[in-house]
């Protein structure tokens, strides 16, 4: 009985930890900044693909290194997703602050672009894109130092765009013709790729007749680490203070000399980076493919909304609560516990399949949000209206 209870508790927490680590980045991006980032799942996917690339790199190095690849993959996944987040923020989202509908559509579009990008990424595409951005943005950057840039910008764009495009296309076509399959073959393709956890992580820790999978333990540890890191960063560092002040009152912070644009970019990059870490973590449990992100996006929004937008602690409680509820209902544990009460037990037995437990959890969430629309920890005070 004790073992069963412990097993249930551990499983609930481990499902919650996956939810939480996936939602943590969104809790910052959506919770603190108010940006509805539909591409959050795709940033996770980029993290997962980074893990795949690092793993393959370590395979080349040899067997003795393979066990440690995950520790290199984590920071790299953070970095890749953060850079992509930075590009996304600078390129798209900063023009759309305060316009949630447009943000939603734009980031959804970005998510589709990213999905197709990993499907068709090959040397030709990569080199073509690099050549194009070097030529086009390089020219813009060089000319931007001229005095009369505003006057000639139209002409620069009109000349440079077709020119750099032409060069990029020609380079791509030339490479494709010369090296054929070697450069035109997609790196990853539409198929899922395999991320295999290091050998020591594939088994589990046997306790009291059941087994705690090491991957789950690792993810729980990683989640705790990330939450602690985010908390310390926001509460104890100078940039954290700036982030909090900007999210509370943007114009006042700007008046006081805080570079709000920089703060926005940094916040978004950190949120995206956390998505990358989450992607690395879930690649140990689930599949890695272009659609990986879509499997998590709904759950992450659910966690943030139930927890209360803008509160990290809310996301933590919500993730654990949803994870545990999902497990207890889906595995039939609740039905077993309620055996004495016949009608309730029957009800929960009906919901004790994985797909039906989702129905039940969602129904409970809807009911909960009817009672408390602000989530578990609603925001209070003047910042709510801002």
């Amino acid at each position: 009985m004790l073992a069963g209870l412990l097993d249930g508790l551990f499983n609930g927490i481990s499902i919650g930890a996956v939810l939480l680590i996936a939602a943590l980045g969104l809790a910052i991006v959506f919770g603190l900044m108010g940006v509805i980032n539909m591409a959050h799942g795709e940033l996770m996917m980029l993290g997962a693909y980074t893990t795949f690339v690092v793993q393959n790199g370590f395979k080349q190095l040899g067997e003795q290194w393979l066990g440690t690849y995950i520790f290199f993959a984590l920071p790299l996944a953070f970095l890749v997703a953060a850079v992509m987040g930075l590009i996304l923020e600078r390129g798209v989202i900063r023009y759309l602050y305060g316009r949630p509908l447009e943000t939603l559509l734009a980031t959804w579009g970005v998510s589709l672009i990213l999905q197709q990008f990993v499907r068709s990424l090959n040397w030709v595409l990569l080199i073509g894109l690099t050549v194009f951005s070097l030529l086009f943005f390089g020219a813009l950057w060089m000319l931007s130092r001229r005095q009369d840039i505003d006057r000639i910008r139209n002409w620069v764009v009109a000349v440079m765009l077709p020119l750099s495009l032409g060069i990029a296309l020609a380079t791509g076509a030339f490479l494709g013709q010369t090296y054929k399959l070697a450069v035109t073959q997609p790196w990853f393709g539409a198929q899922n790729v395999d991320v295999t956890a290091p050998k020591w992580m594939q088994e589990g820790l046997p306790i009291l007749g059941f087994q705690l999978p090491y991957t789950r333990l690792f993810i729980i540890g990683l989640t705790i680490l990330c939450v602690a890191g985010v908390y310390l960063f926001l509460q104890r560092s100078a940039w954290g203070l700036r982030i909090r002040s900007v999210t509370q009152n943007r114009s006042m912070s700007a008046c006081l000399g805080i570079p709000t644009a920089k703060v926005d970019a940094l916040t978004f990059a950190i949120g995206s980076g956390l998505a990358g870490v989450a992607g690395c973590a879930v690649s140990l449990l689930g599949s890695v493919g272009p659609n990986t992100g879509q499997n998590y996006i709904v759950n992450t929004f659910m966690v943030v909304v139930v927890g209360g937008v803008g509160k990290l602690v809310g996301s933590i409680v919500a993730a654990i609560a949803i994870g545990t509820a999902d497990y207890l209902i889906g595995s039939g544990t609740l039905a077993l516990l309620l055996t004495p009460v016949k009608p309730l037990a029957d009800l929960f037995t009906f919901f004790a399949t994985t797909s039906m437990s989702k129905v039940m959890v969602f129904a409970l969430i809807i009911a909960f949000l009817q009672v408390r629309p602000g989530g578990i920890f609603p925001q209070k005070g003047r910042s709510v209206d801002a």
Partner: protein
Amino acid sequence: MARQFGRRKFLIYGCATFGTSILLKACSGGQPTATTESPAATGSSATSVASGSTDTIKVGILHSLSGTMAISEKSVVDAEQLAIEEINAAGGVLGKKIEALVEDGNSDWPTFAEKAKKLIDQDKVVTIFGCWTSASRKAVLPVFEEKKHMLWYPVQYEGQECSQNIFYTGAAPNQQIEPSVDWLLQNKGKEFFLVGSDYVFPRTANTIIKAQLEAKGGKTVGEDYLPLGNTEVTAIITKIKAALPNGGVIYNTLNGDSNVAFFKQLKGAGLGPDKYPSMSVSIAEEEVKAIGKDYLKGHYAAWNYFQTVDTPANKKFVEAFKKKYGQERVTNDPMEAAYIMVYLWKQAVEKAKTTDIEAVRKAAIGQTFDAPEGQVTLGNNHHISKFVRIGEVADDGLFKIVYSTDKAVEPIPWNQYVAETKGYSCDWSDPKKGGKYKTT
């Protein structure tokens, strides 16, 4: 000033998007999959069809190239294009080259129906090769019946269907599921736990398995279904442990991403193939690669074809495929079925000496082909006879064949274990019998 600013921005972004899209398109155009015989069909107008139809024969390829199912369907398209290329290289059909028009069903079933209509009405193709999921097949079925057209379907499916307008070259349940259950009962144990994705194929398949287990003295100790794309399987693993405390057979009809999560977490929970052998019907060579062979080693899969099948036709097929698409690519069962169906269609056209759909449909029945899996015959129920094999995942990620039927198994589309269809059969060679008639 403000207006000019807006116009300038518009110009910049307009150019940028236009440019990027051209760039992307050009790059994807360079890929080997979109070879010259398959221009992106979207642009072809009615006039080009009229002029083109004189020297080429147009066929449609309708699969998901984007969305969840793209993972699996992309490689089937590759196999179909390989077959078409081989046929063209050998002189084509009736002296004409085959031109394949590829349409993307986008993993969305209404889109499949729309694209099927487009291929039939607008592009005037003479046949369509396509679909993967049963849901997409069910979505296009009314289109093909209304237009009296022809679909070739290459994937193993749950049976319980026999349309005049479809040729099924994948396995019917009696050519995959039923023999594998028999094999498990003989070799691995009597207690089964059924896991599947939550849609039509796993649910129908599990109904059949349950009926079969009951008839043969096995026992179903539990079943559970995961929503498609779900990767949280902790609850299912708990249930398996509770239902089979001393080990037993897991029969797995999960599809797509859930498989990866299932096997990764199964190993983490300590449920290995020694005590909990699993039989999968949706895991082939491609999937083994995507899941990771470490997780799958020792588990079983039931198919009609594995890359390791030892026939001369298969050696040729694997070699040609690797040469065209790269050495690290693998071949699998649906790809082989897709490869077969293009050839069967070609033979039917050659026998009928026309591409007229009715004539080809008649000529197709009775065609035999020396397929990579062995010699197969297209029966009068529009399904083909197939060899049944069971493979165990080996160290190299390919399958070690542990069981194989010595001759091709005849297809039975209407299941004989399920009460509603017991005693029914299908025969399109006799107009009085049709798709579902009662045998006595």
